[in-house]
């Protein structure tokens, strides 16, 4: 094969490829302009944890330590306490509650084992994923940061519906 045929064939190869690539220009964009446009997360997405409360605003957690035992990275720290006051006055739904509930997000690997372990549905994964901080110590989140009543939900995500397409992204309609 002479060098001229080689050059011609390579050029044809490049032109063929470029035709396919350039054909993408008028098509719809796949990329999302995050954070101007929220990104799509799936319903089971595992983000920052939420500590749940019942309908009266009482914490569901009974400090049974199961989440801490299930955690593969040992990032959950709990101190349990009993509160003998009547239901209306106490913090938790049950007498026993978690006085301290810390999750170290420097260690957490978002595996979902704590959620699976919780017998009271007191902890679930939320959708917040923007956890970066300037100081490593700030990654240690306390109960006040995690409670569903006090946690601020980010505006930068949108939960996908199960009826949506596999490659659906948020689009302004």
């Amino acid at each position, binding site marked *: 094969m002479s060098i001229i045929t080689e050059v011609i064939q390579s050029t044809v190869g490049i032109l*063929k*490829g470029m035709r396919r690539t350039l054909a993408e220009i008028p098509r719809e964009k796949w990329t999302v302009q995050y954070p101007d446009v929220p990104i799509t997360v799936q319903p089971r997405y595992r983000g920052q944890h939420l500590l749940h409360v019942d309908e009266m605003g009482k914490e569901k957690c009974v400090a049974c330590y199961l989440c801490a035992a*299930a955690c593969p990275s040992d990032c959950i720290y709990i101190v349990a306490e009993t509160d003998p006051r009547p239901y209306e006055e106490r913090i938790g739904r049950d007498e026993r509650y978690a006085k301290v509930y810390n999750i170290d997000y420097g260690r957490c690997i978002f595996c*979902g084992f704590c959620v699976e372990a919780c017998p009271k549905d007191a902890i679930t994964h939320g959708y917040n994923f923007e956890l970066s901080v300037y100081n490593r110590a700030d990654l240690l989140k306390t109960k006040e940061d995690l409670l569903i009543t006090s946690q601020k939900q980010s505006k930068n995500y949108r939960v996908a519906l199960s009826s949506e397409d*596999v490659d659906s992204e948020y689009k302004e309609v």
Partner: protein
Amino acid sequence: MSVAVENIPGQFELADQPLDSEMTLSMGPQHPSTHGVLRLDLRLDGELVVKAIPDIGYLHTGMEKLFEYKKYQQGIVITDRMDYLNPLGNNLVYVMAAEKLLNLEIPERAQVIRVLMCELQRIASHMVWLGTSALDLGAMSVFFFCFRQREKIMNLIEAASGGRMTPSYFRIGGLMMDLPAGFERRVKQFMEDFPEALDTFETLVTGNTIWQSRTQGVGVIDKEEAINWGLTGPCLRGSGVGLDLRRHNPYCGYETYDFDIPVETDGDCWARFRVRMRELNESHKIVRQALERLKPGPTKADAPKVVLPDRDDMRKHMDSLIHHFLIVAEGFNVPEGEVYMPIEASKGELGVYMKSNGGPKPDRVHFRGPSFVNLAALPVMSEGEMVADVVAIIGSLDIVLGEIDR
């Protein structure tokens, strides 16, 4: 890449002193075409590689040690982080080894879902391979097309398990949970779009003369050498050995699926490329068959002492609650013994050697990573080639350093 190193001390010292006409080139560990933190000591005679010595271990995190300190079910999350392009395959081999020790029977639906998810993951893994190896050889746009397809699979995996790169979807005795509503429809939709994408890759890559001349006849390893070096997966099939563990050591009911084993005989980068491209078609075929077989049924084995009970059961029945507490807090005891469980992962034979001492934590877990073994054969493939061809060979081996260094 163009850093000439002279008189490197200690561990970087080569076995032989370089001759005057030879140069030592340290390629990596932060070189984009080494696909991670691989360092190659290349001894060059001009442009020709005289000797290539891979230097690994930059990503070593002691995972095999960590397994010994975690309960069996906690070990699943460590396997996600080994071969991070094929985490579901790693989950599968780990849970199957534990299930073999426990002698668990997995229900039909769970088996089919495992096959379905693993084949989707195989397509995703091959997409990363195709994109990055094409990028190494200068084809930029293939990378974006590949990652678009991979993103769709990542969405599917996220929908099923909640994690994109670290799903931990398979559990000992079944699955984390059943597939979400609408999952089958979404997989079908992906399956319909995928052949068109494959056509795009064929146009962009396979028919391209530049790609052909960069890969044909480069990095040749023949049949006997390939077996001698322990190559598995597409690298071995590219050398003319039609070995596929899905067919020859079947697991998860793979023996009942209809698929071909693509084999090429040349043993060069082009052959390995063709094998993987044809494998994409085969995986596509298996996913379609698995979708047809998806019938309603249980997704967890009937083993109350090993598998976490249903959440409704756990709230209503005392015995389920007790089992739930025991499994989570103390784990379950696994009978004494040792097993070796091999599967066909996207890169080759992924084996796990698991040894139990009868307690809730494994005594020893060893992963036989296909990338680890395939990379060991890089010196024989690259000797006598050009420096630029070493990049093509690494791309065709499809290595993942997370699995090599563990």
